[in-house]
């Protein structure tokens, strides 16, 4: 019901590939969900304990008022948590990464759905980031940068960074992308490939001439 109201795309993102080519689409690691939930629980305990202390102070000051305000306090304590919890799951469920041999597509977002497509030919650098809490969960963030126009900051909507959060196999993915980047002969700035071999190759007319010489020699 929610997904139809929010018009969430039903299918994972896709990339056009030649039949038989490698394609994989996946969510971040399950541990990323636990990582998000850890922050949720810390915030949950922090805010709700704060609210409880506040209510306790009010109770000692005026019992009647505190009892009247008990219900609003409970709503204030519970509703944002439920919303936040649902948002975490939605956030996780809407994060998709699609990789092929040639390109990467990331989708994320709940209110605004962002989809970012890049080809590995254009990748300038890849970095892997991991904070202390991420270290504990054994997940990393892989940021793939192209030479595209600047970002408006970390996690901005339309930058040159494809951010893959919560990966448990970040090193593998970095290696895969970098091997693709190494194979590329150009700077990834849209340069045309130089067809050097075309100039040294035989033209069709020259080939015909060669064949004639061969046949003439054979007939000698």
């Amino acid at each position, binding site marked *: 019901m929610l997904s139809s109201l*929010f*018009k969430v795309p039903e299918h994972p993102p896709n*990339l*056009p590939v*030649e039949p038989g080519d490698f394609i994989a689409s996946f969510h971040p690691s399950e541990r990323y969900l636990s990582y998000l939930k850890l922050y949720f629980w810390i915030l949950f305990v922090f805010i709700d304990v704060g609210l409880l202390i506040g209510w306790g102070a009010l109770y000692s000051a005026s019992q009647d008022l505190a009892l009247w305000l008990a219900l609003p306090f409970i709503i204030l304590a519970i509703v944002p948590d439920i919303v936040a919890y649902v948002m975490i799951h939605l956030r996780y469920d809407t994060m998709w990464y699609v990789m092929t041999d*040639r*390109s990467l597509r990331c989708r994320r*977002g709940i*209110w*605004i*759905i*962002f*989809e*970012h*497509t*890049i*080809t*590995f*030919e*254009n990748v300038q650098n890849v970095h892997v980031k991991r904070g202390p809490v991420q270290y504990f969960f054994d997940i990393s963030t892989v940021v793939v940068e*192209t*030479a*595209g*126009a*600047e970002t*408006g900051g970390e996690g901005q*909507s*339309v*930058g*040159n960074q*494809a951010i893959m959060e919560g990966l448990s196999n970040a090193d593998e993915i970095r290696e895969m992308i970098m091997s693709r980047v190494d194979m*590329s002969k*150009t700077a*990834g*700035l*849209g*340069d*045309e*490939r130089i*067809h050097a*071999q*075309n100039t*040294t*190759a*035989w033209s*069709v007319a*020259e*080939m015909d001439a*060669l*064949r004639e*010489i*061969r046949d003439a*020699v*054979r007939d*000698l």
Partner: protein
Amino acid sequence: MSSSDPRTITRPDNSLLTYYTLVSLISLVFFPFVFIPLYVRFRTLRYRFDDDGVSMTWGLLFHKEVYLTYRRIQDIHVTRNLIERWMGLAKMPIQTASGTSGATMNIEGIRNPEPLRDFLYARMRGARADQGSEIHATAVGNDALTILTEIRDSLREIKQKGHNAP
């Protein structure tokens, strides 16, 4: 408007104007100030997708035209907010390797952006094997080598025969 062949796209979808109106309404009292520039933008927005690149023009008093070639595209984005999703619209910011912040070209008002995105993606560098002509060239080169070897062998045979005959 048919979006089956992106090359036929010249105008944004009409529902873009509805979207602009909704966006302007959010600004309440500033509605006219927000809406009029957007209306002009909608009226004057033109796209042209040709074989090598895409151009986008808009503006009445301050006319602007952006042209970029498909091969130089670095990033293709598709962003859809909730209102746009309800209306079936999408924005497609496209980036090249220029230094300006923000998208180089912000294609707006596209219904069903997937065919257009696939169209652009297929023309981006690295989206498909580019080595076609090189492979062809080496194939021809190998043929030439074969023929040359055959000529050499034939000449050797002739030389052998010439030695043996007298």
